């Protein structure tokens, strides 16, 4: 207890030095927290689940996948043909409709890409939307209800809404880029809860398909070039890996999906293939950047503690004269470093958690939406701070342990 009291007192004795060390630790722990949060998020996306997993059905060879919409009913049933075949628990079909609000001057802000889908699947199949807080849940349900009743309804993410400079209830005409000649008018009927879908947009698939059906009437009987290629992907929910394997087998062996052929993979496998293009960047983040930040962190702490030990050699000698054992002197130094590292680490991740999650509503992470600092970071921070403090203070602590009383006092004499 006495040792603990001394540790706290020593840390507070030089407020400037302690503050500088703590600030250094906080900043570097922040960097490591951000990098690890990003890596942990991406790892989560590519980690194979064993239960309640999603499968993606896409065109077998080509990117972007473009299949006929007539594939949907059969795929929704997992291409089950025989008694005993496995059917998916749920499904959703995605068609991508993109365009610009201003065809004369296309900019990044006025380009809008929406997923055309069955509105009733928004809550049941889209990640995280089945576990909303009651307020967000009621708001989104109301928006979905309106989109079901009003086919030109669109639900937009908050950042996307801001980017296109529109408000709830506004109407807008989207001049299509990928469905040439099919320009659609929309009414914004709701927004997604803040977070993952901040940059997303969802429209009613029936609206797009009706426009595709109507196209020949306005163009001399010619079908739209995209008419037979409007389905981009189908998501299927299956209970476990065994069900996935069987559904995937049924789909791949089905003669119905011959032209174009399709493939069925788990969502995590599909994302992993995409992320492979960034593998060197991710490797660098994991094995170059994080270790470098951790070593820098240890150096900052090691420097501060070794300076402090050097300045207090006399005091450490006095402690020994007063009966402190060498191991206690060592623990005193280690304790100071650990206290500083742990506290600063916790302060850093707590601050990052509050700023990134609450204040900013997530750090933008390109096509993956927003990155949130996981709750786990609240223990990573102190752990990183403590580990770096321990690594950085071992040598100074050993030096403190080995302080020779006679030698110190002979200098004074």
């Amino acid at each position, binding site marked *: 207890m006495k040792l603990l009291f001394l540790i706290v007192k020593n840390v507070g004795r030089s407020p400037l030095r302690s503050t500088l060390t703590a600030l250094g630790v906080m900043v570097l722990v922040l960097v490591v927290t951000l990098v690890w949060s990003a890596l942990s998020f991406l790892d989560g996306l590519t980690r194979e689940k064993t239960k309640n997993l999603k499968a993606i059905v896409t065109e077998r060879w080509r990117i972007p996948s473009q299949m006929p919409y007539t594939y949907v009913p059969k795929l929704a049933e997992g291409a089950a043909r025989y008694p005993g075949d496995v059917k998916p628990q749920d499904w959703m079909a995605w068609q991508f409709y993109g365009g610009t609000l201003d065809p004369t001057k296309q900019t990044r802000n006025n380009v809008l890409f929406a997923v055309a889908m069955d509105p009733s699947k928004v809550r049941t199949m889209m990640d995280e939307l089945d576990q909303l807080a009651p307020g967000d849940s009621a708001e989104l349900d109301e928006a979905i209800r309106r989109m079901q009743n009003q086919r030109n309804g669109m639900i937009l993410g908050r950042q996307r809404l801001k980017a296109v400079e529109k408000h709830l209830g506004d109407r807008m005409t989207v001049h299509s880029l990928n469905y040439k000649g099919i320009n659609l008018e929309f009414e914004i009927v709701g927004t997604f809860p803040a977070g993952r879908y901040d940059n997303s947009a969802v429209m009613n698939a029936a609206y797009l398909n009706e426009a595709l059906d109507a196209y020949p009437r306005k163009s001399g009987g010619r079908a739209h070039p995209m008419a037979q290629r409007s389905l981009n992907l189908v998501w299927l929910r299956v209970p476990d890996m065994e069900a996935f394997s069987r559904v995937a087998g049924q789909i791949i062996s089905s003669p119905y999906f011959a032209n174009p052929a399709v493939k069925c993979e788990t969502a995590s496998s599909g994302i992993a293939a995409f992320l492979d293009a960034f593998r060197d960047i991710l490797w660098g983040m994991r094995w170059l950047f994080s270790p470098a930040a951790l070593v820098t962190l240890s*150096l*900052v702490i090691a420097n501060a503690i070794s300076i402090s030990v050097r300045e207090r050699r006399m005091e450490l000698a006095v402690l020994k004269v007063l009966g402190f054992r060498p191991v206690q002197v060592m623990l005193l130094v280690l304790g100071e470093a650990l206290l500083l590292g742990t506290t600063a680490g916790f302060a850093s991740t707590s601050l990052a958690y509050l700023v990134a999650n609450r204040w900013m509503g997530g750090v933008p992470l390109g096509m993956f939406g927003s990155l949130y600092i996981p709750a786990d970071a609240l223990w990573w921070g102190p752990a990183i701070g403590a580990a770096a403090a321990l690594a950085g203070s071992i040598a100074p602590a050993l030096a403190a342990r080995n302080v020779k009383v006679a030698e110190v006092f002979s200098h004074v004499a």
Partner: protein
Amino acid sequence: MLVLLAVGRVPLRYNLRNLTVRWKTTLMTGLAFVLVVSLLTVMLAFVNGMYRLTEASGQPGNVVILSDGATDEIFSNLSPVDVGDIENQPGILRDGNRPLASRETYLVVTQPIVNAIPGRPKRRFLQVRGIDDVTTAARVHGLALYPGGMWFSAAGVQALPHSEQDQAEAFPHPAIQIVLGEGIARELAQDRTPQQRAAARDPQRLDVGETFKLADRVWLVVGVMQSGGSTFDSEVWARRSVVGPLFGRESYSTVVVRTANAQAARHVKNYFTTQYRKAAVQALVETEYFASLSETNWEFLVTIIFITTVMSIGGVFGVMNTMFAAISQRIKDIGVLRLLGYSRRQVLICFLLESLAIALVGGVVGCLLGTLADGWTANSVVSSGAGGGKFVVLKLSVDALILTVGMLVSLSMGLLGGLAPALSAMRLRPLEALR
């Protein structure tokens, strides 16, 4: 630093000796500089490599023509009739009767990876460029083959090579002739079994005569392009009439036309943008097109600036700590210096020089370490940010600008970290310091 030295007329030897006397602290502070600067150098070399790649891929005299509204080649659709008309417009160079225009279909296909490393994806995205006339295309893009290779034939296919004859039943169609970019040839070589690698002519990359399987066909390498430093380095070229139907794409994505020079290219671009009415197209000078793929480079750069700034702030706190400690240990020295006639400004410069000296050495070593990354290859994606993009293999490139930035960051850290302690040293009164 030199300016400070000249202006300050400070006892430099005294400062340097102090650094060597406290060598452990100096070393640890210097190491922090080394880490921050070397990391910064490597990250900037990566972005520099991406910029160089997008800049080197375009020819200033070429014009890329895509369908109107397409944000990337992959979304572009041009009909054969439109393409025939486009290449016969004025301003396009001709070789005899034929226009110097390359008709292309750009495809991204999913390739299952045989012998995939456990834990790594089982599929990769392969960029296939279907080309009508490969010699014209090579001329337009300024690409040549490595010795021993040839461009694919007019048919684009040939009988299965001897090595694949035993699989003739599984692969009844003729082999597809392809030429590979050097980067993708290295990537595909990773799929080889150890036996195949041992028997290969080039252990690093696929070479002429080697094969891989895709879409139930055997793909036979007939040439490897000298495409290093361009986006074509990551592409597989094959005859369009073979790969287009194979992957269900009959239309063209791109026409690249050659004009006399950069100025003529701008005229042709303007003509297609403002006067050409037969088909809805958009035209871009090729260098502009590849420059538009720099959006991802910019995003990476912003991230690097953010990360480096945050890490540098951490380093600054470390330097401040060291310098405050150095001053507290030498308060009496400062008193003596003042009594010897050194002014406050000289004391300030004296301590600033100490932190700058650590920063200088740390920066130089950091830059040297970072330079080791020059020439490393890495995979990435370049994109305009509006969908699409290209998977590329790039070379990290450390240049004088990056080294200058590294040194400036290091010296700025030293300056910021040393300023507050130096100011506190400057404010010390001589008699109080000696008391």
